[in-house]
């Protein structure tokens, strides 16, 4: 399943449309890391609203992706983690250390706006 990557001004938005296999996830990571400097993007948003499960592989891939994108000079925000998913993640001890998270796409966009313009990142 291909994940569409949309360019929106300074940001890239990857909106996951269905459950992804491990290979799909790796492809998404590679695509995003490549495109970041292609488009000279300052921020990346990954929307995981449709995911009902986040296993250790997905968590690790998202985390490493965020770190890679940071090295390429952009911020990453993961948005749309569902309450049930968040709860099972912490129960399984899966953490997204060093990765910014936001409630949904809208919040993620305003978070990036503030971060990149040097604001406090909230409100």
């Amino acid at each position, binding site marked *: 399943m291909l994940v569409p990557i949309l360019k929106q001004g300074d940001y890239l938005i990857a909106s996951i449309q269905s459950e992804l296999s491990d290979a799909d996830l790796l492809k998404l990571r590679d695509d995003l890391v490549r495109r970041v400097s292609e488009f000279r993007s300052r921020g990346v948003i990954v929307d995981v609203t449709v995911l009902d499960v986040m296993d250790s592989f997905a968590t690790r891939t998202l985390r490493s992706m965020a770190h890679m994108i940071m090295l390429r000079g952009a911020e990453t925000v993961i*948005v749309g*983690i*569902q*309450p*049930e*998913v*968040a*709860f099972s*993640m*912490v*129960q399984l001890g899966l*953490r*997204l250390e060093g990765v910014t*998270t*936001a*409630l949904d796409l809208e*919040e*993620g966009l305003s*978070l990036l706006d503030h971060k990149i313009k040097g604001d*406090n990142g*909230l*409100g």
Partner: protein
Amino acid sequence: MKKKGTNQPSNEADTALRQELVEHFREKRELLRQQWVEQMTTKGLLAGLTREDIENESITIYDTCIVCLETGEYEGAQTYATRMAERGVLRGMTTEQIIGGILTLRDVYGRSLFEWYQQDMERLLAALDIYEPVANKILSIVALAFVEEREKIVRQQQEAIRELSTPVLQVRDQMLILPIIGVIDTHRARQLTEQLLRTIRTNRAKVVVIDITGVPAVDSKVANHLVQTVDASRLMGATVIVTGISPEIAQTLVTLGVDLSKMNTVGDLQGGIEEADQLLGYRAIRIDPASGSNHQEKKVQ
């Protein structure tokens, strides 16, 4: 004990004897019932019941038991026992009252059998073979109904307490407070976290203040739950501030070596709300009442 079906030849005799017992109990109904009520009164098992109640209930129970003996079907007894347990528990009857009452009835029936058949030992034994399993079955039905009723009430109350014990309140746009009162166990912690996460989503909250002033004690498990709640909220894009950590709890946490470095803590609820205001860009301004304005909050931005 004779079992139905395994002992074919005596089946007919069984039925006849069973019928005889039923006739006997029906005949002696008034006498035995009075004995029963008398004995229960002596034992103090009827406290809190009116005369009328006693009459009605005792007649129904007596007849229901005889029907069980006659037909070998216990559905009537089952239904009646459940209803009786419902009413009994509501009226605050004790286990002793209900079980004791049925036990007394069992004795009354038993005694009357002994009297009736005292000349014929063999027939008495045969009668007891029929009577005892029925009596035991009825007793267990009543006891189970009573216990089940109690358990039902306990479950309902637990549910009510749980619902009451996890209020997640919005105090400003994007700010929630979650005052925790009482002991946190695994189950409650789970429910608390789930409720908080749902509310974060519906209210689009950015900052959550968890106040644990009302938590009497914290152990490593509870601390772990707190850390999990904080992590899960962060995954939903909300910052958590923990307030109201008492000196004792602070000591326990440090002694236990719980990693609270990622946790944002503030002394009391007021401080927590002020901190949250700051994070969200609110500033509380006191306005002179003389100016007539009642807006005390203003968003800076």
